[in-house]
Protein backbone atom coordinates (compact mmCIF):
# COMPACT_ATOMS: atom_id res chain seq x y z
CA UNK A 1 0.00 0.00 0.00
CA UNK A 2 1.34 3.39 -1.02
CA UNK A 3 -0.04 6.40 0.83
CA UNK A 4 0.96 9.89 0.04
CA UNK A 5 -0.22 13.27 1.13
CA UNK A 6 2.27 15.91 0.13
CA UNK A 7 2.56 19.55 -0.85
CA UNK A 8 5.36 21.62 -2.36
CA UNK A 9 5.65 24.89 -4.12
CA UNK A 10 8.01 25.05 -7.13
CA UNK A 11 8.24 28.38 -8.85
CA UNK A 12 4.71 29.21 -9.95
CA UNK A 13 3.38 25.70 -9.38
CA UNK A 14 1.61 24.86 -6.16
CA UNK A 15 1.58 21.07 -5.93
CA UNK A 16 -0.77 19.33 -3.52
CA UNK A 17 -1.58 15.64 -3.95
CA UNK A 18 -3.27 13.07 -1.79
CA UNK A 19 -3.37 9.53 -3.07
CA UNK A 20 -3.61 5.98 -1.77
CA UNK A 21 -2.84 2.90 -3.83
CA UNK A 22 -3.53 -0.56 -2.54
CA UNK A 23 -1.65 -2.94 -4.80
CA UNK A 24 -3.14 -1.28 -7.83
CA UNK A 25 -1.94 0.77 -10.75
CA UNK A 26 -2.90 4.38 -11.18
CA UNK A 27 -2.48 6.46 -14.26
CA UNK A 28 -1.42 10.02 -13.54
CA UNK A 29 -2.71 12.11 -16.42
CA UNK A 30 -2.76 15.80 -17.04
CA UNK A 31 -1.66 18.54 -19.38
CA UNK A 32 1.94 19.64 -19.72
CA UNK A 33 3.19 21.48 -16.70
CA UNK A 34 0.59 19.94 -14.42
CA UNK A 35 3.29 18.57 -12.16
CA UNK A 36 3.15 14.88 -13.05
CA UNK A 37 6.89 14.37 -13.30
CA UNK A 38 7.40 16.58 -10.26
CA UNK A 39 5.15 14.25 -8.33
CA UNK A 40 7.40 11.34 -9.22
CA UNK A 41 10.51 13.25 -8.16
CA UNK A 42 8.88 14.01 -4.83
CA UNK A 43 8.09 10.35 -4.34
CA UNK A 44 11.58 9.26 -5.34
CA UNK A 45 13.23 11.56 -2.86
CA UNK A 46 15.01 13.65 -5.46
CA UNK A 47 12.84 16.57 -4.43
CA UNK A 48 11.69 17.18 -0.90
CA UNK A 49 8.04 18.02 -0.10
CA UNK A 50 7.41 20.98 2.16
CA UNK A 51 4.69 19.27 4.15
CA UNK A 52 3.08 15.88 4.34
CA UNK A 53 3.86 12.21 4.55
CA UNK A 54 4.72 9.30 2.28
CA UNK A 55 4.36 5.74 3.49
CA UNK A 56 4.95 2.51 1.61
CA UNK A 57 3.98 -0.90 2.95
CA UNK A 58 3.92 0.51 6.46
CA UNK A 59 7.37 2.11 6.11
CA UNK A 60 7.54 5.87 6.39
CA UNK A 61 9.56 7.27 3.54
CA UNK A 62 8.91 10.87 4.39
CA UNK A 63 7.27 12.74 7.21
CA UNK A 64 7.70 16.47 7.49
CA UNK A 65 6.40 16.62 11.03
CA UNK A 66 8.61 13.81 12.31
CA UNK A 67 11.60 15.03 10.27
CA UNK A 68 11.92 11.73 8.43
CA UNK A 69 13.35 11.84 4.93
CA UNK A 70 14.78 8.60 3.63
CA UNK A 71 17.54 8.82 1.05
CA UNK A 72 16.69 7.84 -2.50
CA UNK A 73 18.58 4.59 -2.28
CA UNK A 74 16.64 3.49 0.79
CA UNK A 75 13.13 3.89 -0.55
CA UNK A 76 12.90 0.61 -2.45
CA UNK A 77 11.09 2.16 -5.36
CA UNK A 78 11.42 0.98 -8.92
CA UNK A 79 11.77 3.85 -11.39
CA UNK A 80 11.62 3.96 -15.17
CA UNK A 81 12.33 7.39 -16.64
CA UNK A 82 11.07 8.31 -20.05
CA UNK A 83 14.10 7.08 -21.98
CA UNK A 84 14.67 4.13 -19.63
CA UNK A 85 18.14 5.38 -18.64
CA UNK A 86 20.03 2.16 -19.24
CA UNK A 87 23.70 2.52 -18.31
CA UNK A 88 25.43 2.72 -21.69
CA UNK A 89 28.77 1.53 -20.38
CA UNK A 90 27.38 -1.74 -19.02
CA UNK A 91 25.90 -4.64 -20.93
CA UNK A 92 22.37 -5.85 -20.31
CA UNK A 93 23.44 -8.22 -17.54
CA UNK A 94 25.54 -5.49 -16.01
CA UNK A 95 22.53 -3.22 -16.01
CA UNK A 96 20.28 -5.86 -14.59
CA UNK A 97 22.66 -6.71 -11.75
CA UNK A 98 23.46 -3.10 -10.88
CA UNK A 99 21.00 -2.96 -8.01
CA UNK A 100 22.07 -6.31 -6.58
CA UNK A 101 25.58 -5.39 -5.52
CA UNK A 102 24.97 -6.61 -1.98
CA UNK A 103 24.39 -10.17 -3.16
CA UNK A 104 27.13 -12.67 -3.91
CA UNK A 105 27.96 -12.90 -7.58
CA UNK A 106 26.24 -16.14 -8.35
CA UNK A 107 23.00 -15.05 -6.70
CA UNK A 108 23.19 -11.73 -8.49
CA UNK A 109 23.46 -13.34 -11.89
CA UNK A 110 20.76 -15.86 -11.13
CA UNK A 111 18.21 -13.36 -9.98
CA UNK A 112 18.89 -10.87 -12.74
CA UNK A 113 18.91 -13.64 -15.31
CA UNK A 114 15.51 -14.83 -14.09
CA UNK A 115 13.92 -11.44 -14.51
CA UNK A 116 15.47 -10.91 -17.91
CA UNK A 117 14.03 -14.26 -19.02
CA UNK A 118 10.67 -13.45 -17.54
CA UNK A 119 10.52 -10.27 -19.56
CA UNK A 120 11.67 -11.97 -22.71
CA UNK A 121 15.11 -10.39 -23.04
CA UNK A 122 17.30 -13.06 -21.48
CA UNK A 123 18.99 -13.73 -24.80
CA UNK A 124 20.33 -10.17 -24.86
CA UNK A 125 22.42 -10.50 -21.71
CA UNK A 126 25.77 -9.73 -23.36
CA UNK A 127 24.48 -6.99 -25.62
CA UNK A 128 24.91 -3.30 -24.97
CA UNK A 129 22.01 -0.86 -24.69
CA UNK A 130 23.03 1.09 -27.78
CA UNK A 131 22.25 -1.86 -30.02
CA UNK A 132 18.78 -2.59 -28.62
CA UNK A 133 15.37 -1.51 -29.86
CA UNK A 134 13.16 0.71 -27.74
CA UNK A 135 11.01 -2.15 -26.68
CA UNK A 136 13.97 -4.29 -25.70
CA UNK A 137 15.42 -1.43 -23.69
CA UNK A 138 12.20 -0.95 -21.79
CA UNK A 139 12.11 -4.60 -20.83
CA UNK A 140 15.72 -4.54 -19.68
CA UNK A 141 15.04 -1.44 -17.62
CA UNK A 142 12.04 -3.12 -16.04
CA UNK A 143 14.04 -6.24 -15.26
CA UNK A 144 16.72 -4.07 -13.73
CA UNK A 145 14.26 -2.38 -11.39
CA UNK A 146 12.26 -5.48 -10.57
CA UNK A 147 15.30 -7.58 -9.72
CA UNK A 148 15.48 -5.58 -6.52
CA UNK A 149 11.93 -6.47 -5.52
CA UNK A 150 10.77 -2.90 -5.20
CA UNK A 151 7.64 -2.19 -3.23
CA UNK A 152 6.20 0.18 -5.82
CA UNK A 153 6.82 1.08 -9.44
CA UNK A 154 7.03 4.56 -10.88
CA UNK A 155 6.86 4.79 -14.65
CA UNK A 156 7.31 8.09 -16.47
CA UNK A 157 5.75 8.09 -19.93
CA UNK A 158 6.69 4.44 -20.42
CA UNK A 159 5.80 4.26 -24.09
CA UNK A 160 6.58 7.73 -25.34
CA UNK A 161 9.91 6.63 -26.76
CA UNK A 162 8.43 3.78 -28.82
CA UNK A 163 6.92 3.55 -32.27
CA UNK A 164 3.15 2.80 -32.42
CA UNK A 165 3.52 -0.91 -33.08
CA UNK A 166 5.99 -1.48 -30.24
CA UNK A 167 3.80 0.72 -28.13
CA UNK A 168 0.71 -1.43 -28.61
CA UNK A 169 2.66 -4.60 -28.10
CA UNK A 170 4.33 -3.50 -24.91
CA UNK A 171 1.21 -1.95 -23.52
CA UNK A 172 -0.41 -5.33 -23.72
CA UNK A 173 2.53 -7.00 -22.00
CA UNK A 174 2.69 -4.31 -19.35
CA UNK A 175 -0.99 -4.75 -18.58
CA UNK A 176 -0.57 -8.45 -17.90
CA UNK A 177 2.64 -7.91 -15.93
CA UNK A 178 1.03 -5.32 -13.71
CA UNK A 179 -1.91 -7.58 -13.08
CA UNK A 180 0.48 -10.41 -12.27
CA UNK A 181 2.78 -8.52 -9.91
CA UNK A 182 0.15 -6.55 -8.05
CA UNK A 183 2.61 -3.83 -7.05
CA UNK A 184 1.41 -0.33 -6.35
CA UNK A 185 2.29 1.44 -9.60
CA UNK A 186 2.11 5.04 -10.68
CA UNK A 187 2.18 5.55 -14.42
CA UNK A 188 2.60 9.09 -15.64
CA UNK A 189 1.27 9.54 -19.12
CA UNK A 190 -0.32 12.08 -21.39
CA UNK A 191 -1.50 9.30 -23.71
CA UNK A 192 -5.07 8.30 -23.00
CA UNK A 193 -4.47 4.89 -24.57
CA UNK A 194 -2.43 4.02 -21.50
CA UNK A 195 -5.59 4.11 -19.41
CA UNK A 196 -5.96 0.38 -19.99
CA UNK A 197 -3.01 -0.26 -17.72
CA UNK A 198 -4.57 1.26 -14.67
CA UNK A 199 -7.32 0.44 -12.25
CA UNK A 200 -7.69 4.11 -11.56
CA UNK A 201 -6.97 7.38 -13.26
CA UNK A 202 -5.83 10.46 -11.36
CA UNK A 203 -5.90 13.68 -13.32
CA UNK A 204 -3.64 16.56 -12.28
CA UNK A 205 -4.04 20.15 -13.32
CA UNK A 206 -1.88 22.96 -12.02
CA UNK A 207 -0.40 20.73 -9.37
CA UNK A 208 -3.72 19.59 -7.92
CA UNK A 209 -5.71 16.41 -8.39
CA UNK A 210 -8.95 17.38 -10.04
CA UNK A 211 -10.37 13.92 -10.25
CA UNK A 212 -9.41 10.45 -9.15
CA UNK A 213 -11.58 7.53 -10.20
CA UNK A 214 -12.16 4.65 -12.56
CA UNK A 215 -12.33 5.32 -16.28
CA UNK A 216 -16.11 4.76 -16.29
CA UNK A 217 -16.70 7.30 -13.57
CA UNK A 218 -14.49 9.85 -15.31
CA UNK A 219 -16.51 9.33 -18.46
CA UNK A 220 -19.78 9.60 -16.66
CA UNK A 221 -18.94 12.76 -14.75
CA UNK A 222 -15.78 14.50 -15.92
CA UNK A 223 -14.69 17.17 -13.47
CA UNK A 224 -13.03 19.46 -16.00
CA UNK A 225 -12.72 20.15 -19.68
CA UNK A 226 -9.38 18.43 -19.79
CA UNK A 227 -10.78 15.28 -18.18
CA UNK A 228 -13.61 15.26 -20.63
CA UNK A 229 -11.26 15.60 -23.54
CA UNK A 230 -8.92 12.98 -22.11
CA UNK A 231 -11.56 10.29 -21.62
CA UNK A 232 -13.21 10.90 -24.98
CA UNK A 233 -9.92 10.10 -26.65
CA UNK A 234 -9.55 6.94 -24.64
CA UNK A 235 -10.38 3.75 -26.50
CA UNK A 236 -12.67 1.39 -24.62
CA UNK A 237 -10.69 -1.09 -22.57
CA UNK A 238 -10.49 -4.27 -24.55
Amino acid at each position, binding site marked *: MLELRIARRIGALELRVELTLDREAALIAGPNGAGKSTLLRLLLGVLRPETGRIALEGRTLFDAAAAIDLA*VEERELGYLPQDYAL*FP*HLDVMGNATFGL*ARLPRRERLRRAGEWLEKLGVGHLARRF*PAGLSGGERQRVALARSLARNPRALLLDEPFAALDPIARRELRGSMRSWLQEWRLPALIVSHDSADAVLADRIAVMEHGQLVQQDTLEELRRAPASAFVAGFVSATPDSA
Partner: protein
Amino acid sequence: MRLRAASAWGAAQLFASALLGLFLLLPVVALFAGSSWDDFSSGLRNPLLLPALRLSLLTTGSSLALVVGLGSLVAWRVARNPGRASRWMEAITQLPAVIPPAVAGVGLLLAFGRRGLFGGWLDRHGIALAFTTPAVILAEAFVSAPFFVQAAIAAFRRLDENLLVVARTLGASPFRTFARVGLPLAAPGLAAGAAMSWARAVGEFGATLFFAGNMTGRTQTMPLAIYTAMESDLHAAQALSLVMVLLAFALLFILRRLAPGGALPGTELPGA
Protein backbone atom coordinates in the same frame (compact mmCIF):
# COMPACT_ATOMS: atom_id res chain seq x y z
CA MET B 1 32.63 43.89 -58.63
CA ARG B 2 31.30 40.97 -56.57
CA LEU B 3 33.84 38.69 -58.17
CA ARG B 4 36.76 40.91 -57.28
CA ALA B 5 35.65 41.26 -53.68
CA ALA B 6 35.24 37.49 -53.44
CA SER B 7 38.70 36.72 -54.74
CA ALA B 8 40.25 39.42 -52.58
CA TRP B 9 38.60 37.79 -49.56
CA GLY B 10 39.82 34.38 -50.66
CA ALA B 11 43.29 35.74 -51.20
CA ALA B 12 43.32 37.32 -47.76
CA GLN B 13 42.46 34.00 -46.16
CA LEU B 14 45.19 32.23 -48.09
CA PHE B 15 47.71 34.88 -47.20
CA ALA B 16 46.81 34.73 -43.53
CA SER B 17 47.09 30.95 -43.57
CA ALA B 18 50.50 31.06 -45.19
CA LEU B 19 51.79 33.72 -42.83
CA LEU B 20 50.48 32.15 -39.63
CA GLY B 21 51.36 28.67 -40.75
CA LEU B 22 54.95 29.57 -41.51
CA PHE B 23 55.29 31.58 -38.32
CA LEU B 24 54.12 28.67 -36.19
CA LEU B 25 56.07 26.03 -38.05
CA LEU B 26 59.38 27.76 -38.47
CA PRO B 27 60.68 27.55 -34.88
CA VAL B 28 59.70 23.88 -34.69
CA VAL B 29 61.38 23.11 -38.02
CA ALA B 30 64.46 25.06 -36.91
CA LEU B 31 64.74 22.77 -33.91
CA PHE B 32 64.96 19.72 -36.15
CA ALA B 33 67.17 21.31 -38.78
CA GLY B 34 70.30 23.20 -37.87
CA SER B 35 72.07 20.38 -36.08
CA SER B 36 73.74 17.22 -37.24
CA TRP B 37 72.98 13.82 -35.80
CA ASP B 38 76.33 13.91 -33.97
CA ASP B 39 75.51 17.19 -32.32
CA PHE B 40 72.10 15.85 -31.37
CA SER B 41 73.40 12.65 -29.86
CA SER B 42 76.13 14.49 -27.97
CA GLY B 43 73.44 16.81 -26.71
CA LEU B 44 71.42 13.82 -25.56
CA ARG B 45 74.35 12.74 -23.44
CA ASN B 46 74.43 15.99 -21.50
CA PRO B 47 74.23 15.21 -17.77
CA LEU B 48 71.29 17.59 -17.41
CA LEU B 49 68.98 15.52 -19.60
CA LEU B 50 68.26 12.38 -17.60
CA PRO B 51 67.71 14.03 -14.21
CA ALA B 52 65.45 16.61 -15.86
CA LEU B 53 63.45 13.99 -17.74
CA ARG B 54 63.09 11.84 -14.65
CA LEU B 55 62.11 14.82 -12.53
CA SER B 56 59.61 16.11 -15.08
CA LEU B 57 57.90 12.73 -15.35
CA LEU B 58 57.84 12.20 -11.60
CA THR B 59 56.61 15.65 -10.69
CA THR B 60 54.01 15.94 -13.43
CA GLY B 61 52.77 12.45 -12.58
CA SER B 62 52.37 13.48 -8.97
CA SER B 63 50.80 16.83 -9.75
CA LEU B 64 48.40 15.13 -12.15
CA ALA B 65 47.41 12.63 -9.48
CA LEU B 66 46.82 15.50 -7.06
CA VAL B 67 44.82 17.53 -9.56
CA VAL B 68 42.73 14.60 -10.80
CA GLY B 69 42.15 13.20 -7.32
CA LEU B 70 40.98 16.44 -5.75
CA GLY B 71 39.66 17.98 -8.93
CA SER B 72 37.25 15.14 -9.75
CA LEU B 73 35.52 15.53 -6.41
CA VAL B 74 35.32 19.29 -6.71
CA ALA B 75 34.09 19.14 -10.30
CA TRP B 76 31.41 16.60 -9.37
CA ARG B 77 30.15 18.78 -6.58
CA VAL B 78 30.12 21.91 -8.72
CA ALA B 79 28.46 20.19 -11.67
CA ARG B 80 25.76 18.36 -9.76
CA ASN B 81 25.03 21.00 -7.10
CA PRO B 82 24.34 24.31 -8.82
CA GLY B 83 24.19 27.21 -6.44
CA ARG B 84 26.16 30.16 -5.21
CA ALA B 85 28.84 28.13 -3.44
CA SER B 86 29.44 26.13 -6.62
CA ARG B 87 29.72 29.26 -8.71
CA TRP B 88 32.34 30.63 -6.34
CA MET B 89 34.23 27.35 -6.35
CA GLU B 90 34.20 27.28 -10.12
CA ALA B 91 35.60 30.81 -10.26
CA ILE B 92 38.34 29.91 -7.79
CA THR B 93 39.42 26.94 -9.87
CA GLN B 94 39.67 29.18 -12.93
CA LEU B 95 41.93 31.66 -11.15
CA PRO B 96 45.34 30.15 -11.93
CA ALA B 97 44.54 30.15 -15.63
CA VAL B 98 44.37 33.93 -15.69
CA ILE B 99 47.39 34.53 -13.48
CA PRO B 100 50.75 34.80 -15.29
CA PRO B 101 53.00 31.91 -14.22
CA ALA B 102 55.68 34.17 -12.80
CA VAL B 103 53.08 35.90 -10.69
CA ALA B 104 51.92 32.50 -9.50
CA GLY B 105 55.49 31.71 -8.52
CA VAL B 106 55.80 34.88 -6.50
CA GLY B 107 52.45 34.20 -4.88
CA LEU B 108 53.44 30.66 -3.98
CA LEU B 109 56.64 31.94 -2.44
CA LEU B 110 54.80 34.57 -0.43
CA ALA B 111 52.40 31.93 0.79
CA PHE B 112 54.67 28.97 1.41
CA GLY B 113 58.19 30.36 1.57
CA ARG B 114 59.98 30.44 4.88
CA ARG B 115 58.92 34.02 5.47
CA GLY B 116 55.49 33.45 3.96
CA LEU B 117 51.95 33.44 5.21
CA PHE B 118 51.63 29.73 5.77
CA GLY B 119 55.27 28.88 5.25
CA GLY B 120 56.29 30.52 8.49
CA TRP B 121 54.13 28.07 10.40
CA LEU B 122 55.51 25.17 8.37
CA ASP B 123 59.05 26.36 9.02
CA ARG B 124 58.51 26.36 12.77
CA HIS B 125 57.52 22.72 12.45
CA GLY B 126 60.62 21.90 10.47
CA ILE B 127 58.92 21.63 7.09
CA ALA B 128 60.65 23.38 4.22
CA LEU B 129 58.52 23.70 1.12
CA ALA B 130 60.09 26.33 -1.13
CA PHE B 131 62.96 25.20 -3.35
CA THR B 132 62.28 21.52 -2.90
CA THR B 133 60.86 18.88 -5.18
CA PRO B 134 57.40 19.08 -3.55
CA ALA B 135 57.49 22.77 -4.48
CA VAL B 136 57.75 21.75 -8.14
CA ILE B 137 54.73 19.50 -7.73
CA LEU B 138 52.79 22.31 -6.07
CA ALA B 139 53.72 24.84 -8.75
CA GLU B 140 52.73 22.44 -11.50
CA ALA B 141 49.48 21.53 -9.77
CA PHE B 142 48.66 25.20 -9.28
CA VAL B 143 49.01 26.18 -12.92
CA SER B 144 47.52 23.02 -14.40
CA ALA B 145 44.51 22.51 -12.13
CA PRO B 146 42.11 24.78 -14.05
CA PHE B 147 42.56 22.80 -17.23
CA PHE B 148 41.39 19.57 -15.68
CA VAL B 149 38.73 20.97 -13.39
CA GLN B 150 37.04 22.96 -16.13
CA ALA B 151 36.95 19.95 -18.44
CA ALA B 152 35.70 17.73 -15.62
CA ILE B 153 32.93 20.14 -14.70
CA ALA B 154 31.81 20.26 -18.33
CA ALA B 155 31.95 16.48 -18.64
CA PHE B 156 29.95 15.93 -15.45
CA ARG B 157 27.43 18.56 -16.48
CA ARG B 158 26.78 16.68 -19.71
CA LEU B 159 25.64 13.58 -17.83
CA ASP B 160 21.99 12.65 -18.15
CA GLU B 161 20.53 13.21 -14.71
CA ASN B 162 18.12 10.34 -15.15
CA LEU B 163 21.03 7.91 -15.18
CA LEU B 164 22.14 9.14 -11.80
CA VAL B 165 18.64 9.12 -10.32
CA VAL B 166 18.02 5.59 -11.55
CA ALA B 167 21.30 4.47 -10.05
CA ARG B 168 20.18 5.84 -6.70
CA THR B 169 16.82 4.08 -6.94
CA LEU B 170 18.73 0.87 -7.54
CA GLY B 171 20.30 1.25 -4.15
CA ALA B 172 23.53 3.02 -5.05
CA SER B 173 24.81 5.53 -2.51
CA PRO B 174 25.79 8.97 -3.79
CA PHE B 175 29.42 7.80 -3.77
CA ARG B 176 28.67 4.63 -5.69
CA THR B 177 26.65 6.61 -8.19
CA PHE B 178 29.67 8.85 -8.72
CA ALA B 179 32.17 6.02 -8.95
CA ARG B 180 30.17 3.48 -10.98
CA VAL B 181 28.07 5.67 -13.22
CA GLY B 182 29.34 9.26 -13.23
CA LEU B 183 33.05 8.60 -13.59
CA PRO B 184 32.92 5.91 -16.28
CA LEU B 185 30.53 7.90 -18.42
CA ALA B 186 32.48 11.14 -18.08
CA ALA B 187 35.80 9.36 -18.57
CA PRO B 188 36.57 10.55 -22.12
CA GLY B 189 36.04 14.19 -21.13
CA LEU B 190 38.03 13.67 -17.94
CA ALA B 191 40.87 12.04 -19.84
CA ALA B 192 41.02 14.89 -22.33
CA GLY B 193 41.08 17.37 -19.46
CA ALA B 194 43.82 15.40 -17.75
CA ALA B 195 45.89 15.42 -20.93
CA MET B 196 45.58 19.20 -21.25
CA SER B 197 46.44 19.59 -17.61
CA TRP B 198 49.48 17.38 -17.93
CA ALA B 199 50.67 19.30 -20.97
CA ARG B 200 50.47 22.54 -19.03
CA ALA B 201 52.34 21.05 -16.10
CA VAL B 202 55.14 19.64 -18.26
CA GLY B 203 55.74 23.02 -19.86
CA GLU B 204 55.57 24.99 -16.62
CA PHE B 205 58.55 27.30 -16.18
CA GLY B 206 57.93 30.62 -14.45
CA ALA B 207 56.18 29.46 -11.32
CA THR B 208 58.62 26.58 -10.90
CA LEU B 209 61.65 28.83 -11.31
CA PHE B 210 60.44 31.32 -8.72
CA PHE B 211 59.02 28.95 -6.15
CA ALA B 212 61.14 25.84 -6.56
CA GLY B 213 64.39 27.15 -7.98
CA ASN B 214 66.52 25.52 -10.63
CA MET B 215 68.67 22.79 -9.12
CA THR B 216 69.67 19.75 -11.13
CA GLY B 217 68.09 16.60 -9.78
CA ARG B 218 65.93 18.37 -7.28
CA THR B 219 63.90 21.05 -9.03
CA GLN B 220 65.25 21.34 -12.55
CA THR B 221 62.47 20.14 -14.80
CA MET B 222 62.83 19.84 -18.58
CA PRO B 223 61.97 23.46 -19.39
CA LEU B 224 64.39 24.67 -16.71
CA ALA B 225 67.06 22.31 -17.99
CA ILE B 226 66.69 23.79 -21.45
CA TYR B 227 67.03 27.26 -19.96
CA THR B 228 70.16 26.20 -18.09
CA ALA B 229 71.62 24.25 -20.99
CA MET B 230 71.53 27.39 -23.04
CA GLU B 231 74.27 28.69 -20.75
CA SER B 232 76.79 26.04 -21.57
CA ASP B 233 75.74 23.52 -24.20
CA LEU B 234 73.54 24.70 -27.04
CA HIS B 235 73.34 21.25 -28.54
CA ALA B 236 71.98 19.95 -25.27
CA ALA B 237 69.40 22.72 -25.28
CA GLN B 238 68.41 21.69 -28.76
CA ALA B 239 68.28 17.99 -27.91
CA LEU B 240 66.16 18.64 -24.84
CA SER B 241 63.88 20.88 -26.86
CA LEU B 242 63.43 18.16 -29.44
CA VAL B 243 62.51 15.65 -26.77
CA MET B 244 59.85 18.02 -25.51
CA VAL B 245 58.54 18.67 -29.01
CA LEU B 246 58.16 14.93 -29.55
CA LEU B 247 56.30 14.71 -26.24
CA ALA B 248 54.04 17.52 -27.42
CA PHE B 249 53.29 15.71 -30.68
CA ALA B 250 52.45 12.54 -28.79
CA LEU B 251 50.09 14.50 -26.59
CA LEU B 252 48.39 16.17 -29.55
CA PHE B 253 47.82 12.76 -31.04
CA ILE B 254 46.27 11.44 -27.83
CA LEU B 255 44.07 14.49 -27.48
CA ARG B 256 42.64 14.13 -30.94
CA ARG B 257 41.69 10.57 -30.16
CA LEU B 258 39.86 11.65 -27.01
CA ALA B 259 38.10 14.70 -28.50
CA PRO B 260 34.25 14.91 -28.34
CA GLY B 261 32.85 12.28 -30.60
CA GLY B 262 34.46 9.85 -28.26
CA ALA B 263 31.60 10.48 -25.83
CA LEU B 264 29.44 7.47 -25.06
CA PRO B 265 25.78 7.58 -26.14
CA GLY B 266 23.61 8.38 -23.18
CA THR B 267 25.89 11.08 -21.93
CA GLU B 268 24.20 13.68 -24.03
CA LEU B 269 21.28 15.49 -22.50
CA PRO B 270 17.88 14.33 -23.76
CA GLY B 271 16.93 16.19 -26.85
CA ALA B 272 20.55 16.62 -27.88
